[in-house]
């Protein structure tokens, strides 16, 4: 049974996806969507489901995570619906409710640990030295205090909750 949930519209708006109401379901977005051509994801349908407030169906779906955020749809939408912003808002709600892919959790943890989303690799560190770059890039990686600042931002914005098991 599909149960529309009007409260969900407010949640989407709070997460930055208020403009979803502008969508008039023309389907231009789906027609040019490279993901839709290769998967069962249909961006027009997602916009409609969001308008109707089909929260449970949206936040637990794989399709929500099949958008590559390529912006093709945003460029072409005749109603200037900020589709990627809406996808992001829906993903934020999905993550807050515990629907996170394990691979994504890994990336999030790496960011929380070292301030970068890519791991440090010894071979690359050596290669950096060989070509005359600083072995440790001059980023948060080279300054503990800077990393402590990033960690504080993560804690203050609730990111630490996301990376917990």
């Amino acid at each position: 049974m599909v149960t529309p949930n009007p409260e969900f519209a407010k949640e989407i708006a709070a997460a930055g996806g208020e403009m979803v109401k502008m969508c008039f379901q023309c389907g231009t977005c789906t027609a040019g969507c490279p993901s839709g051509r290769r998967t069962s994801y249909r961006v027009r349908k997602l916009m409609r489901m969001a308008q109707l407030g089909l929260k449970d169906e949206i936040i637990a779906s794989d399709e929500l995570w099949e958008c590559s955020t390529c912006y093709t749809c945003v460029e072409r939408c005749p109603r200037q619906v900020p589709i990627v912003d809406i996808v992001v808002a829906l993903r934020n709600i999905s993550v807050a409710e515990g629907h996170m892919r394990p691979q994504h959790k890994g990336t999030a943890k790496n960011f929380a640990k070292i301030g970068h989303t890519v791991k440090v690799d010894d071979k690359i560190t050596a290669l950096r030295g060989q070509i005359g770059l600083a072995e440790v890039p001059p980023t948060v990686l080279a300054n503990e205090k800077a990393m402590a600042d990033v960690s504080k931002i993560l804690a203050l914005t609730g990111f630490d909750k996301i990376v917990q098991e």
Partner: protein
Amino acid sequence: MAKYAFFLGCIAPLRYPGIEKSTREVCKALGVELVDLKDASCCPAPGVIRAFNKKTWLAAAARNLALAEKEGLEIVTICNGCYGSLFDAAYELAHEPELLEEVNKILAEIGMHYNGTTKVHHFAEVLHREVGVEKIKEKVTNPLSYQVAAFYGCHFLKPSNIKNIDDPEDPSILDELIEATGAKSMPRKQKVLCCGAGGGLKAAFGDVAKKFTETNLENMKESGAQYIIDVCPFCHLQFDGVQKELGYNIPVLHLSQLIGLSMGMTAEDLALSAHITPVTL
């Protein structure tokens, strides 16, 4: 002389150091001064971190923007992801005072403040707009004769209403920069099709991402391209990493590496050994 804060991001310094090295060399040769944006973190990545928690994304991006603001410098990035993240965050913070206020409450906890003034640029855009194709041509000492595929990626040009760099459906600025080195940019089908890696797709649904890449590779092969030239280390990683299993063998170079080559940089300096798809020059 133009001067910018150089934002490294993650993939270039930690996977493809030759992209960082060639950017430094090319900018030096072209009279663009790069000052390291010290203490910066991940932009943070728009496809993952922003999708997980927008507040974290915006506050961490604002910290990076504030570091540049303190130096009085505009930012240059060599990655579409970093460019997309920092540009979007700077745009939101410049246009939404309440958001800026909220972010500053967080930054105050680490003794920082952001006034909302930092401008963010992409390396390719700086080369095209500020240096110009003619000046690059003058500096070429080793003209190239390759046929190549220009790969723009998505977040370099889009959303075009706020970026305004080139026509997102039929762009030409990367082709022009490539041709300044003597290489020929080959016309092909679906020139602006996404590589597939963005939006967290590579991590969560790698097989779907590969399907995007495969269509691109097929179109590139058909065009006669001998190299793929990108402006984003993440697109670079995607093309470089998945080709072999898809049965292709087209070496991948970042624009900075291509221009570096045309100015006489060596395979060692470009750190081509870090590439997965072998690059034979």
